[in-house]
C-alpha cells in the first residue's frame, strides 16, 4: 500500500501559487504539471487550528469540538484550547489502530502530544520544549539541539514579539524557525519508517499577515518600493527549494501532497463589532464598567456585559462571531436573528460603499449547535476583506489597528491542494474540493477503509 508525504504551507494562496508565482516555484510547478491541483474550500470559519484538523479528520468544527482559540472551562475561566479539546479521531489515531506509522510534525492543535505509532512534535500553541511537546520523549534532546528553543514553534515571542517587530527581524525569525523544523524533519524522513509524513509550515501565515501590503499594490496602505516587496515570494521560493530536497529523499511510490488550510486576502480594515452592537442598543455594558474603561482600549469580557439588558454581543478577530442572549429574546429568536442578519449585511465600508458581507447561521456550519461556544452567527465582512475588532474604546465603526499593531492581510476562504501520485490519470486543474475530503482521500491512498462516521467522500478520481 502507498505512503503519503504531506507538505503543508499555512495560508498558501491559490492565486499566488497556481498563477502569479507558479513559474518561480519549480518543484511545486512540477507537481502541478505532473499531478492534479484544486482550490480547497476551507472550514467556516477558516481558522488555522480548525481547518488543519478538519483536513486531517474529515469532521466539521463542532465534531472536532473547537470553535476558536479559547474556551470556557467549568469554572467559567477563559482557557487556551489544546489537543485535549479535540473530540474526534484524527488520522494518526486511525493509522495507529491499523498498525501504520505516522510522523506528524507541527500540526496545529497537537499539544500536548498523544502516544501514537510513530512520532509527533506539537505546534505553535506549545509553550516551550517540555515533556508534552514530543512523542516519544527521547527525542526532546534532539529538539533542544536545534539551536533556538524560543523560535522552534513560532516566531511570536511575547506580546510585543510579532506585530511590533521590524520587518527584517520577523523575516529572520521565520527563516530560523523553518530551518530548525526542516532540519529535524529531514532526519526523520530518512532514518525512520513511516506510512504518513505530515509537516506543517506556519511561517507563510506569519509573513503574509504582516507583509502583504509591501507587495500588493491594490492595498489601501501599500508601501511603494518597499525593501520587503519580495519577502513573501522569497519565502515561498525558499519553501519550494526545501520541498525539492524532501522530494529527492522520497521513493517513487510515495504520494506527494502540498496543501494549505486557507488562503489570504488583503485587509481593508476592521469593523468594531461591539461598538456597532452598542449603538444599535443590542449590547449594554454594566454601568460601573463603562466608567472604568472610559478612554481606554480594552477587550470585552463577558463579566462586564449587562445580561439583563443585552440581546447580543460579538467576538472574533478576523471573521466576527455573534452570540445571541437566548434567555432575553426567547420565542423571538428566529425573527431577531433574521433582522440582525439584514442589518449586518447592510453595514457599509468606511467610504460608504456596499460590502459583500456573508452571514452564516450556526446550523449552516455546525452539525451540533448545542455547545456553549457555538456562535449564533458567523460573519465575513466583505467576504473577509474587512476583519472584526471586538475591542472597546475605539471611536466609531472602523479601526485600522489594535493596541498591538496592525496586520495587512487576513484569512480567505480558499486554500490550495496539489497532489502527485505515480500512475494517476486525473491530471491538471480539477474542480474545487472541500477541505474535509482530504481525509478520506488520504485513507484511500494508505489502503485503509473509511470509518463509517466520516460522511464526506474522497476526491473523485484521485
Amino acid at each position: 500500500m502507498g505512503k503519503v508525504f504531506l507538505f503543508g504551507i499555512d495560508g498558501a494562496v491559490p492565486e499566488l501559487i497556481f498563477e502569479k508565482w507558479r513559474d518561480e516555484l519549480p518543484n511545486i510547478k512540477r507537481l502541478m504539471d505532473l499531478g492534479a491541483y484544486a482550490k480547497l474550500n476551507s472550514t467556516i470559519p477558516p481558522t488555522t487550528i480548525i481547518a488543519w484538523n478538519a483536513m486531517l479528520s474529515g469532521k466539521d468544527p463542532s465534531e472536532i469540538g473547537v470553535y476558536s482559540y479559547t474556551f470556557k472551562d467549568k469554572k467559567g475561566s477563559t482557557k487556551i484550547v489544546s489537543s485535549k479539546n479535540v473530540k474526534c479521531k484524527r488520522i494518526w489515531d486511525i493509522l495507529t489502530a491499523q498498525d501504520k506509522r505516522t510522523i506528524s510534525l507541527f500540526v496545529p492543535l497537537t499539544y500536548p502530544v498523544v502516544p501514537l505509532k510513530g512520532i509527533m512534535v506539537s505546534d505553535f500553541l506549545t509553550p516551550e520544549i517540555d515533556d508534552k511537546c514530543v512523542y516519544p520523549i527521547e527525542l526532546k534532546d534532539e529538539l533542544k539541539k536545534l539551536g533556538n528553543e524560543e523560535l522552534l514553534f513560532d516566531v511570536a515571542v511575547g506580546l510585543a514579539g510579532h506585530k511590533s517587530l521590524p520587518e527584517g527581524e520577523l523575516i529572520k525569525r521565520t527563516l530560523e524557525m523553518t530551518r530548525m523544523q526542516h532540519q529535524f524533519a529531514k532526519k526523520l524522513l530518512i532514518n525512520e519508517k513511516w506510512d504518513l509524513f505530515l509537516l506543517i509550515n506556519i511561517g507563510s501565515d506569519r509573513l503574509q499577515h504582516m507583509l502583504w501590503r509591501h507587495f500588493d499594490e491594490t492595498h489601501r496602505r501599500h508601501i511603494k518600493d518597499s525593501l520587503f516587496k519580495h519577502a513573501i515570494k522569497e519565502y515561498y521560493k525558499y519553501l519550494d527549494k526545501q520541498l525539492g530536497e524532501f522530494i529527492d529523499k522520497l521513493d517513487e511510490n510515495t504520494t506527494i501532497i502540498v496543501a494549505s488550510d486557507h488562503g489570504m486576502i488583503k485587509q481593508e480594515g476592521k469593523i468594531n463589532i461591539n461598538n456597532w452592537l452598542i449603538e444599535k442598543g443590542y449590547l449594554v455594558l454594566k454601568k460601573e464598567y463603562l466608567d472604568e474603561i472610559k478612554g481606554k482600549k480594552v477587550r470585552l469580557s463577558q463579566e462586564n456585559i449587562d445580561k439583563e439588558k443585552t440581546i447580543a454581543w460579538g467576538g472574533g478577530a478576523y471573521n466576527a462571531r455573534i452570540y445571541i442572549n437566548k434567555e432575553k429574546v426567547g420565542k423571538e429568536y428566529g425573527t431577531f436573528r433574521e433582522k440582525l442578519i439584514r442589518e449586518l449585511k447592510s453595514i457599509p465600508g468606511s467610504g460608504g460603499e456596499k460590502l459583500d458581507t456573508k452571514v452564516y447561521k450556526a446550523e449552516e456550519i455546525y452539525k451540533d449547535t448545542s455547545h456553549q461556544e457555538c456562535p449564533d452567527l458567523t460573519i465575513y465582512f466583505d467576504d473577509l476583506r474587512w476583519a472584526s475588532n471586538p475591542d472597546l474604546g475605539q471611536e466609531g465603526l472602523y479601526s485600522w489597528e489594535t493596541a498591538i499593531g496592525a496586520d495587512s492581510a487576513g484569512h480567505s476562504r480558499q486554500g490550495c491542494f496539489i497532489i502527485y501520485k505515480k500512475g494517476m490519470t486525473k491530471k491538471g486543474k480539477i474542480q474545487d474540493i472541500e477541505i474535509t475530503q482530504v481525509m478520506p482521500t488520504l485513507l484511500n491512498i494508505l489502503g485503509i477503509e473509511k470509518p463509517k462516521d466520516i460522511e464526506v467522500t474522497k476526491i473523485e478520481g484521485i
Partner: protein
Amino acid sequence: MNEENNVTTVSIPKALAEKIKKRCEGTGFNSVSSYVTYVLRQVLSTVESKETTETKEVFTEEQEEKVKQRLRSLGYLD
C-alpha cells in the same frame, strides 16, 4: 450506620428488573439491588475519573499566559 444499610428506593422498569434477576443467577450477586448498586458504582467511577483527567490543567499559569500573549500578538485572541 454503615453505607450499605443506609439505603433508599429507586424505581426501574419491571422488565429490566426481571432481566437483571436472570443475570444475577450464578453470578454471586444475591439480589437485583446489589447488582444495580455494583453497576452504578462502576459507571460513576469511570465517569468521575474521566472528568478528573479532562479538567486537569494542560498549561501551568505561566505557560497559559505565554501562549495567550503569543496569540494576542498574532491577532488571534479576542
